[in-house]
């Protein structure tokens, strides 16, 4: 019995072994019904463009004229280095995919100075204690930049995991595990939103089936009620309230929300509307980034 192992980038099929018996790291797993590498389920992977294709896609958060909503959104006029252009409300963002060789999918997402690296392993073998009979078990591990992970990281992991569970089609891979590992490289505000974006890009890179894409947007409200999208660390500290939303790409529905500080119901609706508009730009960036990566020209 032969199993085929496609390695992305080479463009050739390589038959690894014609026997059931082990060949180094592979062994038969009767439960899954296939030959399984202990951390890797063998599956067909679409042949990706060669490794000489550009992997880095840089986009800017320019929102030309689209932000004509009623809310008081401040056109950025900060004097910090790397300013956002006039009329922009999101910081400059960039994404790089497939940069790590060991995980099945990896992505690095940059928003201004905030940078998060994500790696996805899956669908892979799952511990019997954690397995779910009819869908995949999703696990998220978030590592802070310094220090050991604490209770705040656990809380964020739960938020990211539940968001991913809502979009990943786990029913297609029952009794397997999909692990998303996030490493904070630098934190300059809007960290949770950046983690969500990196996780989404990494899941896409790994080829995990999803019903929609999702993105994270952060809003900050300062003491006089002005709304700021994608705040920096300094703006977050001075703000009266910071709201982070995760929105899906199909109908811009609210998947996840976590807030800090006091605000009124009307302000919540205002922030949600602004976040929905901003998410259009993030999804457009995702689309361009992926089109550029998979195009043959």
């Amino acid at each position, binding site marked *: 019995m032969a199993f085929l192992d496609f390695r992305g980038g080479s463009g050739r099929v390589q038959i690894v072994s014609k026997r059931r018996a082990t060949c180094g790291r592979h062994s038969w797993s009767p439960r899954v019904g296939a030959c399984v590498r202990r951390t890797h389920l063998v599956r067909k992977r679409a042949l990706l463009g060669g490794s000489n294709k550009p992997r880095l896609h840089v986009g800017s958060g320019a929102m030309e004229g689209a932000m004509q909503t009623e809310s008081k959104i401040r056109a950025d006029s900060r004097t910090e280095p790397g300013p956002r252009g006039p009329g922009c409300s999101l910081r400059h963002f960039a994404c790089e995919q497939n940069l790590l060789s060991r995980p099945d999918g990896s992505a690095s997402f940059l928003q201004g100075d905030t940078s998060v690296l994500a790696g996805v392993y899956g669908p892979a073998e799952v511990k019997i204690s954690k397995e779910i009979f009819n869908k995949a078990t999703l696990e998220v591990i978030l590592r802070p930049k310094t220090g050991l992970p604490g209770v705040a990281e656990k809380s964020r992991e*739960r938020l990211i995991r539940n968001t991913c569970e809502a979009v990943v089609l786990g029913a297609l891979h029952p009794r397997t595990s999909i692990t998303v590992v996030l490493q904070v490289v630098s934190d300059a505000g809007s960290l949770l939103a950046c983690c969500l974006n990196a996780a989404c890009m990494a899941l896409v890179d790994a080829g995990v089936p999803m019903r929609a894409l999702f993105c994270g947007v952060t809003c900050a409200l300062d003491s006089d009620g002005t709304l700021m999208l994608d705040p920096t660390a300094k703006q977050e500290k001075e703000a009266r309230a910071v*709201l982070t939303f995760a929105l*899906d790409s199909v109908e811009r*529905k*609210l*998947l*996840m*929300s976590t807030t800090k500080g006091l605000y009124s119901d009307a302000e*919540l609706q205002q922030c949600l509307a602004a976040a929905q508009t901003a998410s259009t730009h993030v999804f457009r960036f995702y689309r361009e980034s992926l089109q550029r990566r998979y195009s043959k020209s």
Partner: protein
Amino acid sequence: MSWCIKNLPAMQETGSIGTADGSSLVKLGNTTVICGIKAEFGAPPTDAPDKGYVVPNVDLSPLCSWRFRSGPPGEEAQVASQFIADVIENSQIIQKEDLCISSGKLAWVLYCDLICLNHDGNILDACTFALLAALKNVQLPEVTINEETALAEVNLKKKSYLNIRTHPVATSFAVFDDTLLIVDPTEEEEHLATGTLTVVMDEEGKLCCLHKPGGSGLTGAKLQDCMSRAVTRHKEVKKLMDEVFKSMKPK
């Protein structure tokens, strides 16, 4: 979309634990949470020398549900502890400056232990009610710093209640595919739901926390309905809490 109105806090007792400085017991249907608050001395943080600490800890033991094992706190307990810490921080339920005795040297540290005795869903609501009731019950003795010996002298005969500025009330919903929203879900409903949402509101209608940890999507209109339901619930709970405190005998 249809609503399903479930249980109000059926029973609330305060001051039941004699050894704690403040305590309360809350029953929400079958979910039972007991909160005990101990006040101890501590040094204030260096970056905020005139503030005290409030340290919440939610303990979900094997007693309350078969899902939990003994040992270090599991994920649900840690998430609940973080949620309570966020509610305390965001709603400014007590001014941390009130807990300071001597700036830079001595402050009160309030250790809030929330122990779940029976977990039948909606643990976040029950913990918030229990914490609020226990904080209203806390009596701190008067402390003076003796200038000669630089030691603190505690006067146990003179105690005063904490100044509770706001009354945050949590309302949880179980979401089923954006068509059905159930208020105050039981454990079975939570398990079957496709998502959950918790709204913490104070008496002025200001939101302290909108906790939606993933799950199926919600439109803005549905969210608006949840807010109005949360306002009604706040009124109901506040009425119950006022009754309980009126009936409490002053010490």
